């Protein structure tokens, strides 16, 4: 059992797009966490995905974590944002959520076994290369099937709906693949 699950904004948006934020809350079972920058990105996306208001109001991701403990850490996070995630100096909030989250998982002793969930393919490949436990929305959905929160068919249908809403989620070939 993971101690904490950090969902990237892409993941929160996937569930908000199909108005199933409640399902994400259920899947996370109190393990969800987020950083300040991810909470800010969610706030910024609320205009086109109104269901994100339920993420912001729900409190089930806990208080947004203030990652940098000193100026040196803030400097390191800015370097990671740019060097690792390709953020630009004149767009300082872009990719800050990813930078904060990976910094926290790699450097915060209490989060060493945390999961990071993202559907950004470039971020996913990086997380795995760094040996972080890096998952996608489809993995959370598979977990929901394993926990009997969803049937394979309904789980598959949810992923189809996410794609239909223009979300970039990986879809298995058939519903039966959504089992462990």
């Amino acid at each position, binding site marked *: 059992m993971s101690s904490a699950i950090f969902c990237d904004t892409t993941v929160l948006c996937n569930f908000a797009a199909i108005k199933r934020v409640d399902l994400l809350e259920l899947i996370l079972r109190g393990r969800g966490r987020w950083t*300040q*920058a991810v909470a800010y990105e969610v706030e910024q996306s609320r205009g086109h995905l109104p269901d994100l208001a339920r993420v912001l109001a729900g409190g089930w991701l806990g208080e947004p974590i203030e990652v940098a403990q000193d100026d040196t850490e803030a400097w390191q996070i*800015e370097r990671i944002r740019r*060097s690792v995630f390709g953020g630009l100096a004149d767009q*300082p*909030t872009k990719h800050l959520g990813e930078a904060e989250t990976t910094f926290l998982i790699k450097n915060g002793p209490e989060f060493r076994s945390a999961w990071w969930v993202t559907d950004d393919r*470039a971020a996913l*490949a990086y997380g795995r290369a760094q040996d972080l436990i890096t998952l996608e929305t489809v993995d959370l959905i598979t977990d929901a099937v394993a926990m009997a929160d969803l049937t394979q068919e309904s789980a598959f249908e949810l992923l189809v709906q996410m794609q239909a809403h223009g979300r970039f989620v990986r879809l298995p070939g058939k519903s039966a693949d959504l089992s462990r």
Partner: protein
Amino acid sequence: MPTISDRVRELLARSGMSQRHFAERVGLDSSKLSKSLSGARRFSSLDLARIAEATQVTVDWLLTGDEPALALAARISGDTSSAAAIAEAKRLGAAREDVAFLGYRQPWRPVRRPVQDGLDTTRGERLAAAALDRVSEADVDLGDLPAAAEEAFGADVAIGDLGPRFDGLSVATAEIKLILVGRGVAPWRQRFTIAHELGHLLARDDQGLHLDQDVEDRQHQRQPTERRANAFAAAFLMPERQLRAAVGSSGFTPEAFADLVCELRVSPSALAFRLLSFRLIDSMTCDRFKALSARQAAELAGRLEQLAADVAAANRVRPPGLLARDAYAAYASGQATLRPYANVINADVDALMDALEADTGDGPP
């Protein structure tokens, strides 16, 4: 020593707003801003990013008070006609600094600077001789000048859209040695500009940004560093020894001249003047040779295909090869996402991932 709070206070003063309005503008809770300014609370990384975004400074400046050398030089230049070129230089310069943070530092290999006396032109020629020795040691072909400058000296060389009538620039900071030239249809002019900028870098002329909007501008050419960079470029691209060997002792036919133009990839007029400067041809021959167009020279030498290929290459955007190599290496080693590499080569990251992860089986391409 000024702190982050001091710099935020400076931005607040510059804005002319009340503290409450400033807090609203940057999206911070007013009481949190107040506590941070008094030192009772730290600014979070998100606070810093939002303040930087709203006030158009960088997070680095907020944290350290240091502005990157390139950003500072770009701001001071204040030249709107150079805006596209400066923006591209800043983009590539920042990418070089970012990849350096991951341990991929630019492999800059300057040559030993020759004795710093004599005329500017003499100093440029001496520097070119040292640079040509390096080219010879590295065994690189000057036909592809951007690749040669990268391999022999470790400079980043890029060709881009720099706006109308902008020849090129160079950037020299502790982490960046960049030559950026404009895309165009006259390959000989582009080659001259690359060599000219290389001359500036090897001579360690300027720290920061050096703009050469028009390398042929007469007023610009009067400056000692420009005279030296021009002399460097001429001697580097048209080495005296090679010219003497080509002319030989049995006269110099128009066909041989045209062949040398194509071999050195320079303009007929530039070569004619250089031959004249060594008294290898007389002034009447010089007039006759410099009247040739590039096309006529290529036709005379039977090298029209080479000219067409050179014109096409000069007209293509070229990302800096070493920087692209280093950004890709950072990705391949798992130290970075693919995004910095995609940024360097101006590609869509998802399309790039599709291409890199494509099945390489037996199907059609």
